[in-house]
């Protein structure tokens, strides 16, 4: 695979994480626990989708500069292959099937109850803030830095929101603590993927724009431990076996359902606009 395509594939990981998590959180809209949190979560969902747009626009711009032949070797979804050469953010979101999505398995996990939704965001928010910080400190890709600079303000607020709810519910009632501890343990098998290199990340090792997953993992563990201690929640002594594959396009069945709902209008009425 062309080295530029690998880098674009790497950018799509960010884009897809943001879009799928945003889509997931948006499922709460109108169903929030209280009005105020319904609005808060809708805001957060929109922030994620906004970040996804920035990454997709950048990825589309870079893709359009690569020969169609080479792009054909990368994409597997027929409908996006038909549109190569003039891709935009919407094509990337609505015309790719699951195997072309590069998001973490973590973000496609179902909302479950509020304990799962908060824990999922908690794991991701702590990761993405460190990732953006790393980009701002090390990357030479100015466009990527600009996206990170804009996004990190939102992500820091998301991290504060999810961390505070971890503490409130973890150190809450007996029942809320039990639910939080269960969500924590059930979602733990999906955190390893954040710090494991995907195939393209392995190939890109040495590229200065690549995030150093090892250093981020260390800091991530320190940061979440601090919150979990305050939340009186605990990580198991031994970490579970970690799930992998999302970043390489191998997903759980959940992603198919998410895409079916999210892409329905574009699939049923191609090129429709509001």
């Amino acid at each position, binding site marked *: 695979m062309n080295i530029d395509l690998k880098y674009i594939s790497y950018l799509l990981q960010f884009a897809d994480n943001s879009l799928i998590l945003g889509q997931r959180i948006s499922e709460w809209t109108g169903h929030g*626990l*209280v*009005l*105020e*949190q319904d*609005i*808060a979560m809708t*805001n957060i969902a929109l922030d994620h989708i906004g970040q996804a747009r920035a990454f997709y626009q950048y990825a589309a711009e870079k893709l359009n500069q690569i020969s169609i032949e080479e792009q054909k070797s990368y994409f597997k979804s027929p409908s996006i292959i038909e549109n190569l050469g003039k891709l935009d953010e919407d094509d990337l979101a609505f015309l790719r099937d699951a195997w072309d999505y590069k998001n973490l398995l973590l973000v496609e996990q179902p909302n479950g109850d509020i304990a799962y939704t908060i824990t999922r965001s908690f794991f991701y928010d702590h990761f993405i803030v460190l990732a953006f910080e790393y980009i701002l400190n090390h990357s030479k890709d100015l466009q990527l830095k600009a996206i990170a600079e804009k996004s990190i303000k939102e992500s820091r607020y998301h991290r*504060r*929101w999810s961390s*505070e709810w971890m503490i*409130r519910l973890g150190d809450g009632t007996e029942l809320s603590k039990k639910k939080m501890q269960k969500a924590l343990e059930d979602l733990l098998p999906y955190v390893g993927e954040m710090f494991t290199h995907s195939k393209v990340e392995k190939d890109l090792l040495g590229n200065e724009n690549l995030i150093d997953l090892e250093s981020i993992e260390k800091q991530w563990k320190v940061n979440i431990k601090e919150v979990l201690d305050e939340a009186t929640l605990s990580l198991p002594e031994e970490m579970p076996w970690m799930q992998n594959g999302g970043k390489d396009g191998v997903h759980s069945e959940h992603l198919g359902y998410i895409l079916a709902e999210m892409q329905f209008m574009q699939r049923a009425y191609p090129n429709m606009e509001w």
Partner: protein
Amino acid sequence: MANNKEWPLWEVFIRSNTGLDHKHVGSLHAVDAQMAIENARDVYTRRLEGVSIWVVESKNIHASLPEEAGMLYDPAEDKIYRHPTFYELPDEVKYM
């Protein structure tokens, strides 16, 4: 929404970008001041309405009684001499 009954009510005051003072914008439910500020951020500042938030628990606000309005406010109606309308204002003085 059952939990709402247990969460106290807070009044929210926002200072806008151009405003000099905090203005009452509404109320919301939250379990403590920290959550009230964050809820206020999410509910009342999502369209760039403000740069500073004050919250106060509604129970701490003491208000004048509506039925006493006549006694309290009507007497000021005919005290026109209390308005500074009898002075010539120099052009330099704005916002009076």
